């Protein structure tokens, strides 16, 4: 049976520590754009922690929502790309082929989650920062869209490893950089088609929902709701 990679984000565990944000950056050669460009809204973070305030002082509360590419089944970014730079792989990944991208930025507009990022200029790694670059992930040039790949290089490596050891891929063999770094284990990755995988089990949780479910994108990331407690001892 083919795989369908997916993720569960437990909002009750997420502490907003942003370990995932830097881990992703380190793994995927995400460029730093610098102050001027960042001020123009061009910073690139394949995963970000959105925070929303609720209520007013002194009853203010915050919600953290880690948002990354949702790898939608019916991804709006895919059909609009004229060059197939954005398409769906057999194992359910929403892939971005940098070499095919000509930079219409149409996919980024179509994405309801705004998780697609654009290289407005040629990325720069001031020497010798370039020595840190991960050789397994291509560096994107100017005019190209990029976004979370679910660390496809790690998926491929784990598949190869399993093949070399003549065994099936086991649950937990693949860990994207963000999930691996997450101290509170708020991010969990796995095969949704395997009903016994931890991710598939958690995705069935009654706390689960999808981000912007109503848009009809059928995302593959399930968010487990953060529970709240009123203070009078009752869970809500």
């Amino acid at each position, binding site marked *: 049976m083919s795989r369908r990679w997916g993720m569960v984000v437990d909002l009750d565990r997420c502490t907003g520590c942003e370990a995932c944000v830097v881990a992703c950056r380190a793994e995927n050669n995400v460029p730093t754009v610098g102050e001027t460009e960042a001020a123009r809204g061009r910073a690139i973070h394949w995963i970000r922690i959105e925070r929303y305030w609720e209520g007013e002082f002194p009853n203010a509360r915050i919600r953290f929502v880690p948002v990354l590419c949702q790898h*939608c*089944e*019916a*991804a*709006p*970014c*895919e*059909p609009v*790309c004229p060059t*197939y730079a*954005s*398409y*769906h792989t057999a194992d359910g990944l929403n892939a971005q082929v940098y070499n095919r991208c000509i930079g219409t930025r149409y996919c980024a507009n179509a994405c309801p989650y705004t998780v697609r990022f654009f290289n407005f200029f040629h990325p720069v790694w001031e020497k010798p920062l370039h020595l840190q670059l991960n050789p397994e992930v291509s560096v994107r040039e100017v005019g190209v869209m990029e976004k979370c790949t679910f660390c496809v290089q790690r998926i491929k490596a784990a598949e190869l490893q399993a093949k070399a050891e003549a065994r099936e891929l086991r649950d937990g063999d693949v860990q994207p950089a963000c999930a691996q770094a997450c101290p509170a284990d708020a991010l969990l990755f796995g095969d949704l088609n395997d009903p016994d995988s931890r991710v598939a089990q958690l995705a069935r949780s009654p706390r689960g929902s999808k981000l912007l479910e109503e848009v009809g994108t*059928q995302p593959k990331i399930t968010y487990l709701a953060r529970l709240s407690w009123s203070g009078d001892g009752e869970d809500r």
Partner: protein
Amino acid sequence: MNAIYGVYAEPASAQRAVEGLRAAGLPETSLLVLSAEPWGEYEFGAYRRHSRMPWLAACGGFLGGVVGFALVAGTQQSWPLRTGGMPIVTLWSAGIITYEMTMLGAILATVLTLFVSSRLWPARQPRLTDPALADGFIVVGASEPPDHLRAEIERRLREAGSEGIKTVPGSAC
């Protein structure tokens, strides 16, 4: 080209000239009528025959549509990439390309038919031009007139109220 013609300021006299030439026994194929504007409301300027242009346009459109659909469906199947949870061959989007190609086919067929049937393509020089044409005069005459009719033609042209009679080659007036 060998021709003899008169230049007319008024369409009515041009009409008279055409009728005179017919009466002189000039074959329809030799009748020469030129103008810098269409005179469809006069018999001499009207062209009665029905054109097959609409049918050819329709055929061109059909052909374009088939090509358009084949292009879409064929390429989508030649490298089947899935996007947005859609099927590989997407009829709705194929419809748009098919439509545009249909219209393109019809337009090209129309223009091609026009060029071919009006002898504009392959391009060539006009058989006859006269500076008077540009000033609104109408040219009526005979191309390749039979020698025995030359005098008669000239007379008829003059009678109809010509502003001048010219012969090609050679000069007159």
